[in-house]
């Protein structure tokens, strides 16, 4: 099984550590992972703002780069959702697209549904609050949205439960948006900041020492707020925890 590693553009530039953690988690499971260097951006920031004139080209580029892998795996629910839910508008019917769409998976989803990991051989002795990022949550259905009356499940929590020492804490609002929202974070910055601060407060009152999630963009937004205000909460991506890393600043 050959896996194409899909690293969101801003993660490549700003979060090489989380990107590397993603690669290492996959390799540690004995998987054959290739990172195609020609990849750039899936187009999500432009598409979410309505600026779609370059989208067809970006989508075709993505298809060309990734179409021959058995699976395409990325550590970002929203970028994966871009490919799975929104590319059809631009490249529906292109040879290989249907297959690509089915085989492009978010990291945790891939580990949970395809590899079906039984146990991660790492420990993480911290209280962890899970932030369910919206696109992964309601679009990719990584967990059951709280609005729906369907059987409850949460793939991310299932993975975290396979880690020694990790204690999951439960915020009062299980899946409220953090207010990142791409350009929303800037154009509607006041509401965005209010939303982010509310999520942080919710995790803190639940007793979380570490907040985690499957989308770096949301975490980047909340980490920016946490660091500005000096709040006692550390932010880590799921890949880092699954890779056995300790929180920054921990011994």
């Amino acid at each position, binding site marked *: 099984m050959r896996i194409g590693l899909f690293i969101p553009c801003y993660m490549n*530039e700003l*979060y090489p550590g989380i990107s590397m953690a993603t690669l290492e988690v996959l390799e540690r499971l004995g998987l054959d992972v290739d990172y195609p260097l020609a*990849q750039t951006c899936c*187009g999500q920031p*432009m598409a979410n703002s309505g600026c779609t004139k370059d989208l067809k080209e970006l989508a075709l580029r993505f298809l060309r780069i990734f179409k021959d892998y058995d699976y395409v795996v990325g550590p970002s629910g929203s970028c994966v959702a871009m490919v799975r839910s929104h590319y059809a508008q631009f490249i529906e019917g292109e040879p290989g697209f249907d297959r690509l769409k089915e085989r492009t998976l978010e990291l945790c989803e891939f580990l949970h549904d395809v590899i079906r990991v039984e146990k991660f051989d790492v420990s993480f002795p911290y209280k962890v609050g899970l932030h369910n990022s919206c696109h992964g949550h309601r679009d990719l259905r990584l967990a059951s949205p709280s609005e729906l009356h369907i059987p409850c499940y949460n793939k991310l929590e299932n993975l975290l439960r396979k880690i020694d020492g990790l204690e999951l804490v439960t915020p009062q609002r299980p899946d409220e948006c953090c207010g990142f*929202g791409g350009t*929303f974070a800037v154009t509607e*910055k006041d*509401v965005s900041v209010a939303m982010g601060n509310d999520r942080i407060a919710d995790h803190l009152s639940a007793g979380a020492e570490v907040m985690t999630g499957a989308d770096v963009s949301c975490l980047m937004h909340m980490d*920016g707020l946490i660091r500005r205000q000096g709040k006692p909460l550390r932010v880590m991506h799921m890949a880092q925890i699954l890779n056995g890393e300790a929180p920054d600043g921990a011994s």
Partner: protein
Amino acid sequence: MGHPENAREFTRDIERTHWHDQALWFVREKRDRAARSVPEWEELRDQAARIKWHTMAHLDRYLEQFEANAKAKGIQVHWAKDAEAHNRIVLRILQDHQVTRLVKSKSMLTEECGLNPVLEQNGIEVVDTDLGERIVQLRHEHPSHIVLPAIHLKKEDVSDTFHEHLHTEKGNNDPTYLTRAARAHLREKFLAAEAGLTGVNFGISETGGVVVCTNEGNADLGAGLPRLHIASMGIEKMLPRLQDLAVFTRLLARSATGQPITSYTSHFHGPVEGGEMHIILVDNGRSTLLGDPTYRKALHCIRCGACINTCPVYRRSGGHSYGYTIPGPIGSTLGAFKDRKANRTLPYASTLCGSCTCVCPAQIDLHQQLYDHRQEIVKAGLLDRKKETTLNLAGWLFKHPKLLELGGKVLRKLVPRLPRPLVYNRFNPWGEARELPEMPAKSFKELYRERKGRQP
């Protein structure tokens, strides 16, 4: 002013923002409990959506059947193609009966049509009799929510308003005291009114009757006490059969407020003895919406307000920040469809979190509609020029990975060396309340290449 500016104003009082958010989240949680009390909840939503699809596909037929059945019951039926026609018809009916005092129950449609000022200019006293609507009417405001019109106000605000207009004790904030004062005040208005106007929640094609849902019974008093009852109804309120109504009454109150059913679900099937009943069927852009494959599902809306209660942006910016009759996700899509230019910031007043779509009892694809509106706004050249230029530049850069890589490298090296005021200033809206990510020395691509090089 667009939504961001209004929202900035709203969030300035962060305590009040929290209070507003929590008040509405309380309603959302009540809704969740009510929805979970119905095992077949998701099937009900499916069924509701299918009934709406069917009804909208045959709306012409159902409307004509409705008209015939209503007429057979002695109801006079009028057709209004737009807001102006609606207001003209209401005014004419009232003038024909020399009405000078009208009581109204909740009707977002008459808000949409701007009815009250038209009647008032013609010497007719209009009293909104829904408690929340009466409060905002006394304050010369618009409803900030379609189900909870005065949700933006605290009991202290209501006390001040009632003291000023109803002469209640100054500073008495006791909700029971205030409610009783409102009831006494409204009773007089009901008894003096010569006509009552109600909205319509559902029109039943096979019976020709209309159904109005309230918690206060004010529609019943307004429709039953005076001799003249006018019901204003958007054409999308149509349901084919009485049995279809059951699906919607089970969904409506649970979605709206978490109640199993509204206190009053009143069926009107003709005039009171010796009186007249009129139904005005209003289009006002609805048939244009019906003809649009991308947005027509917005006509499924039963005005429960669930998408508004769940919207994290609404809860933290308030209904008035939208500047449109209906706030929240459903208002943003309806508003943008109606007047794209005037409402161009509304589709962006969302993180596209999708909670609205999941909560909607009629399965309207709300966040997808907002996503689609954004493309139309850009195509129409209505996006903020600066934002569009930046995004287009980004799009171009992403097609040129070598340049992108170079740009990233420069940024990573440069930013940490710059003095803080050069990074955090008014040109950096991200940094107003947030730190930027810490700039790593190398990109993942660089690390990956090095790692590859090291491997045998």
